[in-house]
């Protein structure tokens, strides 16, 4: 059987992503980012996101098909994120995908966004395969997942409060660095000393879980006190110290999971994986332990349509039943349930 042609649509948060895959080969990859539209609010505003998706979706699908040189009738399936995410945003992509699939007489696959992230490294690394530990971290999620087999996932750790990306966003706001927090803290940290301030690393007693709200409180308390005392260090030092505290925890917990499961492969996905310090620390730790590391390019780490289509490649090949035409989005979808 030749590799199937699949259109993938992702609209769970603030990126409208569309791609065409031929098997695990990316034929086209287009994206409309709303970062600037949300920047003035300092975070993703659900209604603003949904408005942008409904304007972007049709032109992007057209562009993805055209640049792949694929006529809609040639598609073998249509895939779209069904959850988790913002309900109004999910509805746009899923309704569009469903209607297109029905009209073309093709199967529709509603995909779990998190499973999309788990599949993304497959589009760049042929050797990436289960069993693996995957760190997923973004503004909306922070999880450590044990991929036992494709379709068989165990969530080992999760955040008990803020997602890692949310912590970056909130602290960047507090430092007056703007939005989105990950990239601006990354840039500010470049000339800072990560050891300048020893912020706490939370949940040392829970090997795979995260907590970032304590860090937030401690940064705010520290800065307010330092200001009164006149001992305020340069902003770059504070930024680098915050980044180090978050990265430390993410790296430590990821490799705790590697140790616990004895797997030999680590993957990653989500916007926080764009952080350069995190990428290099994961690389160092993987090399030190002789573990294979599969962190895809930044555009494949952040939300996109290709990762959604990638999951459907397997679904279709395995003969999995497509979504019912009466299916709806599921904003609180949980991987493996």
């Amino acid at each position, binding site marked *: 059987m030749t590799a199937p042609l699949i259109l993938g649509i992702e609209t769970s948060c603030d990126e409208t992503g569309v791609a065409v895959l031929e098997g695990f080969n990316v034929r086209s990859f287009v994206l409309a980012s709303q970062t600037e539209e949300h920047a003035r*609010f*300092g*975070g993703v*505003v659900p*209604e*603003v996101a*949904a*408005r942008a*998706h*409904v*304007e972007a*979706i*049709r*032109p992007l*699908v*057209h562009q993805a098909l055209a640049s792949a040189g694929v006529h*809609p009738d040639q598609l073998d399936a249509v895939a779209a994120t069904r959850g988790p995410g913002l*309900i*109004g945003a999910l*509805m*746009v*992509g*899923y*309704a*569009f*995908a*469903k*209607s*297109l699939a*029905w*009209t*073309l007489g093709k199967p529709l696959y509603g995909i779990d966004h998190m499973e999309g992230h788990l599949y993304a490294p497959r589009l760049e690394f042929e050797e990436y395969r289960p069993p693996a530990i995957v760190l997923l971290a973004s503004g909306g999620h922070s999880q450590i997942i044990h991929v036992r087999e494709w379709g068989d996932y165990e969530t080992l750790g999760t955040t008990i409060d803020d997602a890692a990306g949310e912590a970056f966003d*909130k602290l960047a*706001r*507090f*430092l*007056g660095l703007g939005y989105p927090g990950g990239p601006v803290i990354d840039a500010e940290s470049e000339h800072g000393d990560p050891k300048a301030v020893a912020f706490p690393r939370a949940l040392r007693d829970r090997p795979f879980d995260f907590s970032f709200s304590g860090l937030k409180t401690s940064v*705010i308390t520290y*800065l307010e006190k330092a*200001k009164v005392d006149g001992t*305020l260090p*340069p*902003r770059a030092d504070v930024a680098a110290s915050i980044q180090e505290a978050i990265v430390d925890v993410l790296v430590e917990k990821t490799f705790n999971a590697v140790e616990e499961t004895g797997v030999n492969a680590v993957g990653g996905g989500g916007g926080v994986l764009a952080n350069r310090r995190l990428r290099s620390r994961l690389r160092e730790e993987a090399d030190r332990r002789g573990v294979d590391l599969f962190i895809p390019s930044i555009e494949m780490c952040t939300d996109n349509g290709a990762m959604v289509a990638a999951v459907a490649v397997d679904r279709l090949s395995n003969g999995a039943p497509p979504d019912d*035409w*009466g*299916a*709806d*989005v599921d904003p609180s979808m949980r991987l493996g349930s």
Partner: protein
Amino acid sequence: MKILAIETATPASSVALGSGGTLEAMSVRVDRRGHVGFLMPAIDFCFEQTGWNQHDIDAVAVDVGPGPFTGIRAGIATAQAFAAGVGAPVIAVSSLTVQALRAATGRRRIWSVVDMRRGQVAVAPYRPLPGGVAPDGSAEVLGAEEFRAVLDTDEADTLVVGDWQALPEAMWGGLHRVRRGRPRYPSADVMLEIAAIRAAHGDYVAAEDLRPDYMREPDVQINWKTFRSEGLWP
């Protein structure tokens, strides 16, 4: 001229197939949520009833609002994908006009009302014509008191239609020239009549211009504490 009409602007969702403005099949459901779950099975049902094929469709009509936004976007995304899939043009219809046309039986001036939630309604006046209605002013989003003030100054005998039940009962006291009536919600069968006329005039909307008629800025609520660093670093 075969038309598919998609209506999701209010809690009443409906889908209809018609030829030349005449209804051939229709499916309706009243539910605040679940537009996405309703639409495709409803479309599927209508095609099954008529025995038509999706490629028979000459135009897709969609209600672009005003109305609560989430459902409208589901309808628009569905209409856009259908239209793209079969290469048909799209006709954009107003929910206020659909309600007014359904109500147009007498000589009263019509105020069409759609609930926008949060204590506001979208309203627009229409004047009855033989066999139809014509807009008689522009659409606005108003609170109950503002709408009452508008009705107070209206000299004509008036019929208010749409979801006026969303407004407080007290606002209607002493409005002797105002009568309240049906329909409560817009529906896809009426859209077919409008769409047939529009199609005859080639009055289509370019795919890139098709978007909801929001009539209100997005709700922006960031619940984070507004941390400020001003004064921390000079």
